[in-house]
């Protein structure tokens, strides 16, 4: 009994310590997604992946952002994504395989693609379910209204 007690006293702190470290590590790990890796080596384009971008207290989405660092790079991005030469921003739903291809929400994972001429940037918001789809719409509405 005494032996079991001693073993528990020694093992329990170590187990708890490992649990704490594991929990901490789990929160920090966010591997680069396929979408980020697809664009990360594009010349003259700064690319970032924002994991768990919060839309509200309970819903997060992953976002890949592309920002052209030159006029030439922005021109290439416009051609690749089929962005018209109009001022302001354009937005559409694209497929995860081909973000440029316009699609309709059908319950399958899609991308909300937003292109801004002013910022020479394209944002790809990964929507994996209807909850994220609705939360993104609410987020946009709230940001515009407020």
């Amino acid at each position, binding site marked *: 009994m005494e032996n079991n007690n001693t073993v528990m*006293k*020694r093992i*329990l*702190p*170590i187990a*708890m*310590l490992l*649990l*704490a470290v594991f*929990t*901490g590590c789990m*929160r*920090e790990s*966010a591997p*680069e997604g396929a979408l*980020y890796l697809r664009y*990360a*080596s594009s010349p003259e384009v*700064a*690319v*970032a*992946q*924002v*994991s*768990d*971008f*919060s839309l*509200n*207290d309970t819903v*997060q989405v992953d*976002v890949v*952002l592309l*920002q052209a660092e030159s006029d030439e790079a922005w021109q290439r991005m416009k051609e690749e994504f089929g962005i018209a030469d109009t001022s*302001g*921003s*354009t*937005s559409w739903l694209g497929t995860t395989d081909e973000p440029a291809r316009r699609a309709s929400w059908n319950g399958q994972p899609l991308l909300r693609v*937003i292109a*801004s001429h*002013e*910022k020479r*940037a394209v*944002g790809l*918001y990964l929507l994996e379910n209807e909850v994220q789809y609705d939360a*993104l719409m609410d*987020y*946009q509405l709230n*940001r*515009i209204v407020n």
Partner: protein
Amino acid sequence: MAMMNEDRFEDLWARAGASEYASQLAAEYPAWHARQRRRAGMVAGMALLLAVSTPVFHMFQRTGPHSPQQHVVCNRMDMPTQQWVDLADELLMTA
């Protein structure tokens, strides 16, 4: 009275057959054992505090567009991560 430690305990324990060492062991052991238990308790307490506080800290972290929960990877080392979070937010306003 000599200070009890692991080596002395082993030494006294080995010699405990002789009565004078047995009495020394009996005299020194309780205080030493109590110290050991206190030390083990403190380590267990610290580990428990850490184990509980880490998940709780993450659970109650601030959420929202600038939440520190967001993790950013970028192909440009010199660009601040917050800039990307802001850009993700700003693009949603422009669409």
